């Protein structure tokens, strides 16, 4: 083996390793799942807090708590299933999971502890969530290797700015619309892409 071949070999190893390290299994299922849960809760909050259509305002935090716990149980199920069936398990995938888990706990702290303690007014919870989500999308897009996911962060942050500057009950509807456009639809796209990728590999 001469020097040139050794250099080529090293370059080949580096390329394969770099490509593989970036790989992460993104099926978008949790985007869709959490998106539906939060959208339902936001619409419920809008009609309850604004028009008392769906019961007492005092029940709103409990309804949120119930759905967040339900969401957490569902997420644990998704993670367990993904751990069993993913085509690869990589550090990037683990990093991604930790980012979402860390940010999710942060969001729960802000919404429930901040909200219940009175430190954060309810109307500012949505813009705070939107800010957190922007950060998570920005990093996730980079790890997925999908720039368009990172670009969604701009819209989350823009939405957060609007909701901070112009607070009001309408933020529930705006946030619900943002979740449909920036989370559920992207989740469907990621799900469709992952299905196509799996079909190609069979």
């Amino acid at each position: 083996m001469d020097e040139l071949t050794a250099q080529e070999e090293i370059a080949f190893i580096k390329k394969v390793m770099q490509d593989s390290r970036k790989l992460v299994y993104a099926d978008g299922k949790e985007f869709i799942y959490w998106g539906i849960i939060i959208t339902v809760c936001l619409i419920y909050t809008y009609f309850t807090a604004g028009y008392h259509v769906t019961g007492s305002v005092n029940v709103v935090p409990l309804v949120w708590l119930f759905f967040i716990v339900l969401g957490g149980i569902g997420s644990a199920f998704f993670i367990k299933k993904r751990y069993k069936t993913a085509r690869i398990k990589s550090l990037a995938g683990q990093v991604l999971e930790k980012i979402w888990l860390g940010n999710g706990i942060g969001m729960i702290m802000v919404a429930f502890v901040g909200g219940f303690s009175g430190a954060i007014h309810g109307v500012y919870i949505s813009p705070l969530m939107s800010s957190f989500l922007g950060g998570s999308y920005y990093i996730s897009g980079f790890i997925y290797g999908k720039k368009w996911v990172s670009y969604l962060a701009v819209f989350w942050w823009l939405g957060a700015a609007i909701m901070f500057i112009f607070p009001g009950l309408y933020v529930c509807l705006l946030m619900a619309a943002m979740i449909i456009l920036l989370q559920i639809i992207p989740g469907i796209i990621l799900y469709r892409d992952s299905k196509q990728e799996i079909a190609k590999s069979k």
Partner: protein
Amino acid sequence: MNEFDYQQLDEIIHSRIRLAIMAVLISVDEAEFTFLRDKINATDGNLSTHLKKLDEAGYIAVNKSFESRKPVSRYLITQKGRKAFEMYVEHLEKLIKK
């Protein structure tokens, strides 16, 4: 003996496909057979032969299971394989620096 002896290169790893398998597996925690096949661009038979060689050398391990009644094989690098791969890269680097 020369400063660099090519015979020091691990013959098990010193094959394009096996080197690629090792490079993929050292970068991920675990990979499915079909993923390795697509990544390395090998045929099922060819990949199986090379995986068997690496498995026999104790460089990789395999977890076999059934999903929706279909057999699924997942491969991961062993400690011995990791060490052998690092040694292999070290030898290549020595050759370049020579």
